[in-house]
């Protein structure tokens, strides 16, 4: 069964390499329906986040008590209803998208940069440095991430910026391990030795030869972690240590909705669905990317 696949690989690939690679990945990505659905949801969320100010006439934090606890899909002025202070839920969701997407993006960037740096150093230089870094990573991994998040946020104080840093730090070990493992498997391959023999510096080798070769698992992990970060941020806000009210954060909205669970369940269900959709779309995209970047995995 392996025999048949090898035959036509050679002639196409050699002619257009660089331009064709991106196109080829996009072609494979597009073939996955769930990945395209994920991309659509993500673009919608980005659209809502950017144009939140234009799309709705309401302020996300200004109370409007007479209009409080309106049911969804009843009044076209408040399509998703209002919360316990009469604020429009749709408006708050749109503004909340800004926070969640920012947290997802920035927390992942922090952990990506930190993880790649530490992982490269550990994998490339080995020895004592490797030991020190990996033991540190082991220790971080021994603390369940939500507890680490709670501890860091408690130490640095609440607020968006600290939440991002906390989530960034606690998801760093994953990238660090991927990076180190990739480097260890690449380090002894001939093209690295050839580059070394040609007099390239360590930095040059890491940036130009090693990182491009372990990009695929890193990209996939990063995409999946965006969803995880959004979830982590919502969890922190839910237990009251994340983003402080009245900021319209999805998890915080859910948390306040708890007190009205019996009479106004939409205060919890709507932000809950939104969080789920956001995480789901990132997972779809991540899975799609994995299949597109590594066709070996998909038969």
């Amino acid at each position, binding site marked *: 069964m392996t025999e048949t696949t090898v035959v036509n690989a050679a002639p196409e690939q050699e002619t257009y390499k660089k331009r064709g690679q991106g196109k080829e990945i996009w072609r494979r990505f597009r073939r996955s329906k769930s990945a395209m659905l994920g991309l659509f949801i993500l673009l919608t969320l980005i659209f809502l986040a950017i144009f939140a100010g234009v799309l709705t006439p309401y302020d996300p934090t200004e109370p409007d008590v007479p209009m409080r606890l309106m049911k969804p899909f009843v009044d076209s002025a408040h399509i998703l209803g209002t919360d316990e202070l009469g604020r429009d839920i749709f408006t708050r969701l749109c503004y909340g998208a800004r926070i969640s997407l920012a947290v997802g993006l920035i927390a992942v960037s922090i952990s990506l940069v930190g993880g790649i740096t530490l992982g490269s150093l550990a994998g490339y230089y080995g020895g004592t440095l490797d030991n020190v870094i990996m033991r540190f990573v082991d220790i971080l991994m021994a603390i369940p991430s*939500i507890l680490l998040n*709670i501890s860091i946020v408690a130490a640095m104080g609440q607020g968006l910026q600290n939440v991002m840093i906390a989530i960034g730090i606690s998801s760093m070990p994953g990238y660090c391990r991927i990076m180190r493992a990739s480097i260890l498997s690449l380090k002894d391959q001939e093209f690295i030795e050839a580059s070394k023999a040609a007099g390239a510096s360590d930095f040059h080798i890491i940036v130009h030869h090693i990182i491009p070769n372990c990009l695929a698992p890193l990209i996939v992990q990063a995409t999946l972690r965006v969803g995880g970060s959004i979830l982590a941020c919502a969890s922190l806000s*839910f*237990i009251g240590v994340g983003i402080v009210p009245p900021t319209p954060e999805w998890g915080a909205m859910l948390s306040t909705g708890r007190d009205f669970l019996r009479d106004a369940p939409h205060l919890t269900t709507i932000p*809950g669905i939104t969080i789920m959709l956001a*995480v789901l779309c990132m*997972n779809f995209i991540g899975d799609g990317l994995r299949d597109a970047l590594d066709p070996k995995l998909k038969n």
Partner: protein
Amino acid sequence: MLKYIGKRLLMLIPVLLGVTVIVFTLMYITPGDPVDALLGDSATAEAREMLREQLGLNGGYFERLFRYIGNLLHGDMGISYATKQPVFTRLLETFPNTFKLALLGVTFSVVFGLTVGTISAVKQYSIFDYVFTFICMIGNAMSSFWLGLLLLLTFCLKLRWFPASGFSSPKHWILPAFTVGFHSAANIARMTRSSMLEVIRADYITTARAKGQKELAIVIKHALKNALIPVVTTIGMQFGALIGGSVLVESIFVVPGVGKMMVDSIKSRDYPVVQGGVLAIAFFFCIVNLIVDVLYAYIDPRIKAQYK
């Protein structure tokens, strides 16, 4: 094998020490003086100093760190600011509940995950596969606190099938255990499915088939054990997420566990309790990881051989 376990136990010590140092440091740099919070502004300098000494808050960073670690070895984790009880005593009260919840949750998630993942892989592209792949995707994206609230809303408030609070009967544990385990169950199922799909395409499965072995026996005897190798790692990692998730779930279902205690303590800035809770759970997680690694070596003879 015993040697391997002993070696792993020794390796545990620096990790636990590291965890203690990190958690202690984070709590050390946490802003706000608990003495202020406890005594108010009007207290005399003398009274403040006394309380400081009583709570072990006097001295520099290293002095306090070493004292904390020293006390820890005697089972002394400090005193709760709020209730003035020793943290260790409170942990003894709450930890069994968290342990029970985690154990129920992990049992559910492993049983569900392995069964669903295996069937999905063997019957790839069947209705079963599609339905459960969808459920697992949802489960993966669903936050445990939201799931908990939904279950509470549906089964306790609307349908009244389950009691909303109290832990007198096994019935009370069903919803929290399901909530805490669902996310992990979904992940284990996904992992089992993909690992199984890879394994059932392996050459040695074809070999088994070429011997004339039955499909069911091939799956159980040949595929499952090999497919489990990466899954066991996932289970170990999921256990961490699961214990972490119990922090949220406990406060939704009002389970008197470590998680609920910690969340309550964060709100009242009762840091010794938070610190104790984080440490207890991290220690527990380390032991779980050790068990998982031993299990791993048991399943994969290649690993076992390294430690002979």
